[in-house]
């Protein structure tokens, strides 16, 4: 990670800057959505601890930069539109 110049008192003026830290690399399982099955109830959005679910026009998609592969979305999906697959690296 590139280092930054320190600030007085370590005050961080860059709100939301953790987005620079990509946690997708932690993942061993990867979610996949079946767009046909998705009813856009957005339970997966609500229950994602990592803010890695994005709404699209007709379904949802995953932001794999941050998804840690916990599998909550797949488990909570009421229509079983999400499956977890082994991450290929």
């Amino acid at each position: 990670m590139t280092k930054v110049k320190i600030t007085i008192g370590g005050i961080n003026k860059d709100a939301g800057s953790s987005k620079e830290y990509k946690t997708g690399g932690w993942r061993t399982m990867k979610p996949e959505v079946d767009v046909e099955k998705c009813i856009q109830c957005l339970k997966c959005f609500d229950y994602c601890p990592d803010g890695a679910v994005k709404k699209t026009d007709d379904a949802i998609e995953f932001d794999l930069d941050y998804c840690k592969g916990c599998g909550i979305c797949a488990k909570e999906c009421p229509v079983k539109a999400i499956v977890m697959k082994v991450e290929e690296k």
Partner: protein
Amino acid sequence: MGEQKGLTIQGNMATALGAKLCRPDVIPAYPITPSTLFPEKISEYIADGELDASMIRVESEHSAMSACIGASSIGARTCTASASQGIALMHEMLFIASGMRLPIVMAVGNRALSAPINIWADHQDTIASRDSGWLQFYAEKNQEGLDLMILAFKIAEDERVLLPAMVGIDGFVLTHTVEGVKVPAQEDVDEFLPPYEPPHGKLDPKEPMTFGSLGTPEYYQELKYDQVEAMDKSPEVIDEIFEEFEKEFGREYNRITPYKCDDAEIILLTMGSMTGTARAAVDEMREDGEKVGLAKLTVFRPFPGDLLKEIAGDAKGLAVVDRNISPGFGGAVFAESAGIFINEKKKPLMKNFIVGLGGREIFKKNFKEMYKKTKKSVEKGSVDKMVEWINMDEKVMR
């Protein structure tokens, strides 16, 4: 300059009045002897409409300093008062206030630490927080307590400093003792100390910032260095502001003030209210032809090593008088004074005297004794006992 009204008041009233003149916004405080009159006076000022500020009557000193930190982080001018166990309880928060560079000011009624519990004068409470990154000022008399409160805000809030500051007045000897003080006019203090606007950031939803980040090993050392550098560079600012104060209000302050030191062979180094007694002892000894001087330490943090070297570098002996003790070594002022001279070829022989713990009286004769002991070491050319306790009651010793 407006007229300075004369008042005869207790030390706590002097520091409270000094604080009031600085127009603090928020005063979180928890009562503790001997500094309780400070929050009482502030409460009265607010109740009577003399001060537009908010008190927070917190449930502990830890919360007092925590609330100070919260208030200061949104840019409020913030002060509190405490002593002894109270300062010990807020110890953790002292480091956090300085680490976040929040210029909080604390009036202290210097008091001993338990056990045994003791409410009387002693510098152990603030000396124990020596490493917390706060500027430390010690008053000899109530006038200094009042003035140093104003000076503390001005120095702490200076953008070259941005560090919290504590102003110590000795428990009971000053906190509860009535003395005459001159009170600067409000308009003059307003001019001397403009409203506080944090130059380094504040909590504001319009521009969100995170205070108190996790400092990993990649950044912690640089962040600490930056904070310590502000302390190291502060003497210049302190001198400048002391001078400005003198011009404005006519009273002189120095980080260390020498008294009859020019030709002195032996110098007594004191801090706090004992200095008055030491001065009287020096005068009497001078009348007897002894070449003795006195140096009064007003600023303990940052330690004014530069001035001490100037004042005492040519003396034969330096008697460092400590109203505190670090068990296993000696007094804190002594340890620092000794450290300052370590690389100097020309330096005085040094002795450390522990005095006045837990409110034990310190008499002129005690200073004369310290002088004699130091003189003896100087004549002998060596120090047999580096640290000596003065005015001990041999009858009760086990």
